């Protein structure tokens, strides 16, 4: 899902102005470790996923394993989109 990866990267870079973002952000960098995301950031991210990809993120899915890097997000989305398609 190269487009999705680009979309997610763009969202993270535009929406989280702080922390080590930009070209230096690798797909495996942890948003938490890089200081990109705080408690509100998680919700902003989920809102973006739900609105852009028309999925529903369940409460139990709100965990760093699913959401804490570009690669994790891509994999999480793949799973969600497969289930809903």
């Amino acid at each position, binding site marked *: 899902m190269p487009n999705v990866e680009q979309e997610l990267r763009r969202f993270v870079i*535009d*929406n989280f*102005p*702080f*922390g*080590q*973002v930009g070209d230096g952000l690798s797909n495996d960098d942890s948003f*938490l470790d890089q*200081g990109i995301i*705080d*408690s*509100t*950031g*998680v*919700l*902003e991210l989920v809102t973006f996923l739900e609105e852009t990809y028309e999925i529903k993120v369940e*409460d*139990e899915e*709100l*965990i*760093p*394993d699913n959401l804490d890097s570009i690669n994790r997000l891509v994999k999480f989305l793949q799973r969600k989109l497969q289930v809903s398609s």
Partner: protein
Amino acid sequence: MCGIAGIVNLNGQPVAPALLDRMIERVRHRGPDDCGSHTDRQVGLAHARLSIIDLASGGQPMHNEDKSVSIVFNGEIFNYIELRADLMRRGHRFRTQCDTEVILRLYEESGEECVRHLNGQWAFAIWDSRRERLFLSRDRLGVRPLFYTIADQSLIFGSEMKSIFALPHVSREIDPVALDQIFTFWVAIPPRTTFKGIRELPPGHSMTVQQGRITVARHWQLDYGAGGDDAPEDARTEEEYSAKLLELLVDATRIRLRSDVPVGAYLSGGLDSTLVTALIRRFTGAPLKTFSIGFDDPEFDETRYQNEAVRFLGTHHQEVGCTLADIGRVFPGVVWHAERPILRTAPAPLYILSGLVRKHGYKVVLTGEGSDEMLGGYDIFKEAKIRRFCAARPDSRLRPRLLKRLYPYLGNLQSQSGAYLQAFFGARRDQTEDEFFSHRPRWQLTSQLKTVFSGSVRSEIGAYDGLAELREALPAGYSGWDGLCQAQYLEAAYLLPGYILSSQGDRMAMAHSVEARFPFLDHRVVEFAARIPPRLKMKVLNEKYLLKRCADGLVPPSVRNRPKQPYRAPEGKCFFGGARLEYVDELLSPERIAHDGIFDPVTVQKLVAKFRDGRAIGIKDNMALVGVLSTQLVHDQFVKGFREEFAYAERRAGTAAICH
């Protein structure tokens, strides 16, 4: 309560009185009732007076009989009546009823040790012409401000930095290291200020200037000693602690009512200000006037509790409403008075509140600040306790539930999973030995904002390490203190003077010529509170436990038992969403950001876009926005165009009188 200013020419040249006039003009809002100055060879002292005690004969600068000792003083000495009686027994003769004269005589009696006898809030300068020695001092906790600089072989000092900047040869430049500190700790670490070369005399310090030599020395230290729960069992019971605390608070309040003008009180609806108001009611049969702020946004409004306190205590109450638009409108004036970047808008409503007090003809209010620091009220203390528990018991299934109990008023946090809460607040067992354990999450979160700095500011900051500086400054014995005491110390030594008592306190009250007095900051209360076992300050997770015990029956049960709500105000949305604010558009424009060179234009643009679209909801975005905007205002009003902005601020404050 007043403003002071002065000059010492270190090369011995006489001081030109016109310079003193320029300096004191800039702080006439602190003392609109009268002003005066005095020069003696290489020294000049100036004073703007807000008359509160001995209205007829308390003018300053004040001198002894042969004019060999002169003083300018901002503040109040609350035990002046007892000190005066004692000095009279020792043969001193007084010409006034004023507390200023008490400091003067006490200095004659015991020299620079005089400060040890004072119970109060002060910043003063004493010129001892026989010894050719200037003595400056600031109260224990930093209620009253005092800044200084050295320029062209002169030591220049004043209650506010704008007085110092009134002299044309003083440079005005923002210090990037101060920005680094503010965008980490929320305050600059004294003696550093926002501006390069301008120093603050730290709280609890005195300074002498003699023969060109400047010496700064501490006269008081907040010390938690062996006050931990592990300390040898104190013979006192909980009842005895509670009784003693109440006794001290009663007396601290009693002597803070000493005034020749009427005294009012702030009433926030919280435990601290309600208890202070209740204690005042014990001493005065006269009608008591109370003042409060109401917010149109229910998230911040505490009107319900204020009204319950008013009914219970029977005060004459005045309330001023505060809207988002009000905060946006007054914010430039707030920063003009605060003289530093701030990460919160919370000073703005207090600025509006002091305007209400002044409008009703009051000059003095009692208020509840200091209680949270000294008696264990802040959420950060509770957060640290829970994090410590979680670190010690990594398998406890209570962890997510405990973490959620932390910030019940923050909806965003309530919807987080345990895994994320653990990531935000969790701590490993080995981290509990960290001397800054309590403050790590706050400082780490705030530090992340620093990516908004421009490349040039970042390179000027270089490898500077604020934590290392703070570590160096920790008092002896700190590492042995209980975790709660360590956290209390960090709050009381830095955030209290650097933000609560200044940006939210003195500067906002004095903007409208109002003096605030703080019973919880009576040093007897503070020193006693430092000896209260931590388990009585926060019992399990019940904050200010002992104080609540004291307040039983004195305040409405609803106020005593309500969940703690920290004083907050709406943040970034004050500047967007309503009518466009010209100064916001201008100061945050990409051109202006690039030109001023403090922040990165691309990052600021992203941030502003988020606010304009209504997408910014988090604490980080809000702190960043307010931090960037206030820094730009500091730059605009102090660095770029000092005189013009002064004229603007003066018109607004309506203090056009010139001092001669």
